[in-house]
């Protein structure tokens, strides 16, 4: 048995895999946190300034929408490289787990913002109208009605964003970002260690599965339909 393991997975350093998994977890977790913190208000603003909405502002909407579109249309691998000077300015290094987080947020936040905008648009206009008729101000409409009503959609958006960030985080190995992606590239690809490649991919698949299942559960829990 041990001999078999040795032949099949001779190159696998489990401690290394453990560290890399932890790094991926940290990168995804931190970048998800900041993507939500930045993307949520942007998404709400996109929604509110949109056509026939509460704070209709064609110019503000166009500007915001343009920035979001630019960030979303740049392929992430390019964004990783373009962001390097900015990342260095922001946290002092563009390497390692910390260095990967700013480009991940730059990719994740606009993505999440669009998902928030879409889920807010799904809220029945009648509910906004009813809340207005009760004498609510804009802040109360957002926090009292819009966000609670859109919560299942927003949670689904967080799940999709988290999964996107898993694949982005793996890509950040290219610029020395650390984590499972880094491991896959350095050992699996550059040193032809297929066993390392298989293990890292399997771990990423499991990670995504767990995220999706957890997200679906939460959506179900908060859906009252």
């Amino acid at each position, binding site marked *: 048995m041990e001999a078999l393991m040795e032949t099949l997975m001779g190159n696998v350093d489990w401690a290394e895999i453990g560290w890399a998994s932890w790094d991926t977890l940290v990168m995804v977790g931190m970048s998800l946190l900041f993507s939500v913190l930045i993307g949520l208000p942007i998404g709400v603003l996109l929604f509110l300034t949109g056509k026939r909405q509460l704070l209709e502002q064609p110019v503000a909407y166009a500007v915001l929408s343009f920035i979001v579109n630019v960030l979303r249309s740049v392929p992430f691998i390019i964004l990783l490289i373009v962001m390097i000077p900015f990342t260095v300015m922001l946290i002092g290094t563009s390497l390692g787990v910390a260095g990967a987080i700013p480009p991940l947020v730059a990719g994740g936040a606009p993505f999440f913002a669009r998902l928030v905008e879409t889920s807010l648009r799904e809220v029945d206009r009648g*509910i906004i*109208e*009813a*809340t207005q008729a*009760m*004498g*609510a101000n804009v802040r109360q409409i957002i926090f009292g009605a819009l966000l609670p009503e859109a919560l299942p959609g927003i949670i689904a958006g967080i799940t999709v964003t988290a999964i996107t960030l898993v694949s982005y985080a793996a890509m950040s190995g290219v610029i020395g970002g650390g984590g499972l992606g880094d491991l896959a590239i350095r050992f699996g690809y550059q040193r032809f260690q297929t066993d390392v490649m298989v293990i890292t991919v399997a771990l990423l698949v499991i990670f995504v599965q767990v995220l999706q299942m957890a997200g679906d559960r939460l959506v179900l829990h908060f859906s*009252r339909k």
Partner: protein
Amino acid sequence: MIVFDQVEKSYQVAGRAIPALHPTSMTIETGEVFGIVGHSGAGKSTLVRLINRLEPSTGGRILIDDEDITRYSAAELRAFRRKVGMIFQHFNLLASKTVADNIAFPMKLAGIYSKADIRSRVDELLARVSLSDHASKYPSQLSGGQKQRVGIARALACRPTILLCDEATSALDPQTTQSVLKLLADLNRELGLTIVLITHEMDVVRRVCDRVAVMDAGRVVEMGPVSEVFLHPQHPTTRDFVFESENVDHDELQEDLQKAEGRILRLTFKGESTYRPLLGSVARESGVDFSILSGRIDHIKDTPYGQLTLSLVGGDLEVAMKALEAAEVHVEVVR
């Protein structure tokens, strides 16, 4: 009292002003149930939204208890809206909140009620709309009629003086419509609530309204007490609505009248005279024979009425007409 003084509303579409409501003046009295009936697109939805300024008017003044609400600041408007409840065709309950939380929502938004106040008011309202057992359910677990009762309870939470009903029964089956209308009528009586109700069903107007305005293409084409408008409709649109509500096919009726002999009269009884055995005695006195071509006996709000179309043959027609008019029956000569 709600006074419309030359109120108008138009929408800007591609740089052109499209009128949704032509200059309209009318008065809705405190404590009455005022119906606005019209086909979709007639402007009734716009009209009712002008009252709580969900739609801003583009001309004229709207006075509510002598205050011009079109001049209100944003903050004044929000305070004013708390005194105007509104219910909707599709209920517009928050799916993410329980029944109790939906009812508490306007009170929480107002920010002037204590938690204890809110709780006791919610319990009171739940009991009033007979939903006490459903307090912790979510709207998706309720039937249409129950949802609308939650909507009504929510609209009443901040003790409004005016209740706006936007097609409140149009999504409900006939039986549920009945019970919701009864609830509205009871609330009007108990609380002296002014109710403005828009609908496309004349039957809803007949059941609960005191007065009615009929709208067509952005204009009020007929207005008056329901019994007047309902029994003696003047405008073609009003007639359509009345015929529709009575399930009368107008063309078929005309055909039937063609076949009938003699003089054709439409008699309208209202109140007490509805129950008097009048036709027989008139027939005996005047010697006319009559046959009933069509008829309906029903209630307008709490007043019984009957409307019969008769053909009269032989005898002394003059005497018959006089006797009917003496008995306070409205007589209209159809042919």
